[in-house]
């Protein structure tokens, strides 16, 4: 920054650019209230938990109308996929430091065991690689102990300026 103060007056644009603060990087904690206000994530009641440089952890609260079995108080697997899908998107924006619309291309979930009865489930997803058009994610769902996951997941997302898939539908 100091160096810019001594640059040639002819390169005035560089100085101007240095004076305008860049857009702040994507912050999943600040973005969460907006993402979780509407639509499917809002209906599920997803909540922000924690994040790092390239990962995000969200929570899915236990709720009676999200159960997967008549006789057991265990969350269904469907909402756990939604939780991991949402944490995936947010980990991509966190790793890229910017929000760009993404579409899920492929998502795989392996269920290790049912979540504990009446237990919230957390989804922690890491974006381990981004290219210009794809983002690769992996993560776990757990009910308190990340070392003893309920499920593991892997996925690939595509970045979209406009959704290219909708163009395919002539």
């Amino acid at each position: 920054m100091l160096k810019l103060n001594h640059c040639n007056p002819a390169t005035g644009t560089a100085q101007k650019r240095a004076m305008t603060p860049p857009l702040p990087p994507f912050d999943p904690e600040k973005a969460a209230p907006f993402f979780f206000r509407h639509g499917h994530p809002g209906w599920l009641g997803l909540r922000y938990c924690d994040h790092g440089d390239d990962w995000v952890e969200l929570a899915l609260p236990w709720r009676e109308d999200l159960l997967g079995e008549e006789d057991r108080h265990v969350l269904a697997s469907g909402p756990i996929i939604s939780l991991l899908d949402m944490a995936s998107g947010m980990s991509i924006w966190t790793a890229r430091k910017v929000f760009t619309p993404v579409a899920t291309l492929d998502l795989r979930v392996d269920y290790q065991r049912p979540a504990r009865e009446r237990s919230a489930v957390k989804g922690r997803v890491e974006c381990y690689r981004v290219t210009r058009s794809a983002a690769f994610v992996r993560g776990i769902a757990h009910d308190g102990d990340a070392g003893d996951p309920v499920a593991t997941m892997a996925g690939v997302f595509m970045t979209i300026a406009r959704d290219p898939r909708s163009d395919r539908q002539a």
Partner: protein
Amino acid sequence: MTDRPESERHLTAYARSLGIHVDGEEDRTPVLAVEFSSVIEGRPGALHGGATSGLLETAGYAALRARLEQDGRDPQLKPINITVQFLSAGKQKRTYAKGRITRLGRRNANVSVEAWQDDRNRPIATAIMNILMADRRT
């Protein structure tokens, strides 16, 4: 308990609160459907990938349950895994899904599922599921 059609007996609380219902039956396999609403919306105007997955999974279980009933079996079903392929963005329309049993063994079943909107030949998403069948403890 509210009365619901016999065919929807096996839908989970989660599936019912998403609005998933049995739309009909083909080859003795239930065809499920869900109307577009904010409950299943992701990006504005598009189906959420998680909700699409939930519909596919529910249709996979429904297909397997129907087949097992025809065979006189009533095991407890446990998910092993699901792989979902998203083929095109789900629009603000009714979405259908139907499963097909690719292999039915004694302990596990492999089920493939398709979800579509207007055009049956252009699925918006497909899934492959492995499901464990465990004897019920009495």
